[in-house]
């Protein structure tokens, strides 16, 4: 269902309100428009894949939703309420959890401290035992291969760090979870585990935004595939759409599926009229 005119179509009504809903969201870094008039809806229990070439603005979009960057214009609704995601803690408090592409872990702290960072249970007397048990439970759910959670994160490999970052995002039962290239550094088993995890999170009724360059993975888990190109929406696809169409939308080949579909749609509408 690619459609440029209203790119973030709610595919089937009756799924209630979107968890998150963006309208005309733009973000400029000085003269660079990283995002222009982005529209995006994510429903509870839906996995939306965000794809696009390098520099398309995927990470910037995730950071806007995580409260790291403030949008230059546009509105964001969370569960129907207009929100201003003024800081990362505001986004976290709403229930938006993020695995950043650059992971954002504190290398000098150990795994447990990183997983619980900013969300420690007993502020005046940290409960290390409870935190460690919960950390192991989360990591085991992800089939993590981490020998010790009491080592500084600096001693972990890229894949292990990624697992820690994912475990952290699951800690507080979020309503929307965003994963920016979560499988980029992972081995075969962990990639499968993360895809499984996305399925499970979806079944629990969470909204999921996942960014990946791996079209296999994207097709395996996504309900909808939203394409960004040069900071703009460039079509919405389903996993069943053809590979070539998707690639064309990503790369922006002149004669691409999007333009063809738009033509077809226009023709259909004329037919109806």
């Amino acid at each position, binding site marked *: 269902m690619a459609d440029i005119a209203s790119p973030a179509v709610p595919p089937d009504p009756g799924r209630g309100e979107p968890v998150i809903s963006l309208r005309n969201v733009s973000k400029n870094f000085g003269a660079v428009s990283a995002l222009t008039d982005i529209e995006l809806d994510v429903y509870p229990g839906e996995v939306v894949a965000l794809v696009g070439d390098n520099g398309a603005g995927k990470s910037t979009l995730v950071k806007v939703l*995580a409260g*790291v960057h403030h949008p230059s214009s546009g509105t964001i609704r969370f569960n129907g309420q207009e929100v201003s995601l003024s*800081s*990362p*803690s505001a986004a*976290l*408090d709403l229930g938006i959890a*993020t695995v*950043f592409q650059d*992971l*954002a*872990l*504190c*290398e*000098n*702290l150990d795994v447990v*401290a990183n997983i619980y*960072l*900013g*969300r*420690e249970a*007993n*502020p*005046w*007397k*940290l409960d*290390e*035992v*409870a935190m*460690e*048990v919960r950390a*192991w*439970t989360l990591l*085991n759910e992800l089939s993590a*291969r*981490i*020998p*010790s*959670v*009491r*080592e*500084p*994160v*600096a*001693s*972990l490999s890229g894949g292990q760090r990624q697992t820690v970052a994912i475990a*952290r995002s699951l800690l507080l039962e979020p309503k929307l979870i965003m994963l920016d290239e979560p499988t980029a550094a992972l081995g075969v088993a962990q990639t499968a585990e993360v895809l499984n995890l996305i399925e499970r999170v979806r079944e629990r009724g969470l909204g999921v935004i996942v960014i990946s360059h791996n079209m296999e993975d994207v097709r395996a888990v996504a309900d909808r595939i939203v394409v960004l190109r040069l900071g703009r929406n460039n079509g919405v696809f389903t996993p069943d759409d053809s590979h070539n169409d998707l690639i064309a939308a990503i790369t922006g080949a002149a004669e691409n599926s999007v333009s063809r579909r738009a033509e077809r749609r226009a023709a259909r509408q004329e037919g109806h009229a």
Partner: protein
Amino acid sequence: MSSNPNSVAGRALDRADARLRQDEGLGGALRGFLDRVRSGDLGMIPVAVGLVLISVIFTGLNPVFLRPGNVSNLLYDCATTGIISLGIVCVLLLGEIDLSVGSMSGLASAILGVLWINHGWPVAWAIVVALGLGALVGALYATLYNRIGMPSFVATLAGLLALLGFQLYLLGSSGSINLPFSLPLVVFGQNAYMPNGLSFVLALLPGAALLWSGLRARARRQAAGLTGGAASVVVAKAAALTIGLVAVVLYLAQGRGVPWMFALFVGLVVAMDYAIRRTKWGRSMMAVGGNREAARRAGINVRRIYLSAFVLCSTLAALGGILSAARLGSASQQAGAGDVNLNAIAAAVIGGTSLFGGRGSAYSALLGIIVIQAISNGLTLLNLSSSLRYMILGGVLALAVIVDSLARRSRASHGRG
């Protein structure tokens, strides 16, 4: 343990990975410790080695050095600059610096003298005003940093001059205000020692606390399906701590005993250590010092953390200034000038708190200042001029920074950040 619901395949939750060496008992604890040291996690080791060396050398040159009376006196001198250094640890943990702590302490002593002696205020009010001004100055640095992005190095350098000017202005033409020796605060600063019985009992407390909390943590961990570690390790640590403290206290009891002021300093160090290691605030401090952006994205209020650290640092500097006025029996234009600033910063670094942020301990202020005072004291006993003292302290500081930098490199190559 295999009966525990949390354990994996009969192994404790944290020992399930087959690649993990199953360190058990005292030997295992020792092996883990050596591993950490080899990878560049030196902690307090360099300063401990340094202290032993200093004691041996100076005692060899002049046996008076290690006499109980001299050690008591040395510890008395540690307290004031040590408290200032404790504040420095806070800002260093964030990878920042406060160069104005010396001036702040001098200003605090001037305020104490002017309000208390010249204006006849109750001493408590004078102290509150001095501490409050310290907090205000710290808040100003933090605001400059948070809102304008002014590097703490520059802001506090400006503060160094401005506060010094204010101190000179307050003291005016007289230049110095004497505090009467009969006043309790001055007695506290010059001649207040703990009763030997009390210091002996207090020396038993840390070991007992360590034993109790260690065994309790061990039981809780095992109940939760984690390895508890060997009880023997806990007992050995507690015993070593108790023996060490009791030996020191009994030794000092042969002279005048433990100075109250030093006890206050140690109390503050213990409290700060707890705050850094066991509270959410301390965890946030470490996180901001380690990776500011990651801390922000984890929802930590980074600005508030900077504010708390700078306020704490300046307030402790003011407290150190008040106590040093009591120690000297006067508030003078020289208070806080000279080497107070550098000693306080050097102590934290010598004690093993990294200049690069995110790594360090409250105890580094304690050990670092003892090293510095021991060197000063030893050289004074040898009748060596302050020129030599400065050169030697400069060398020691350089050595400490070299050790810090090398350890950092070694950690990087061992993948320990």
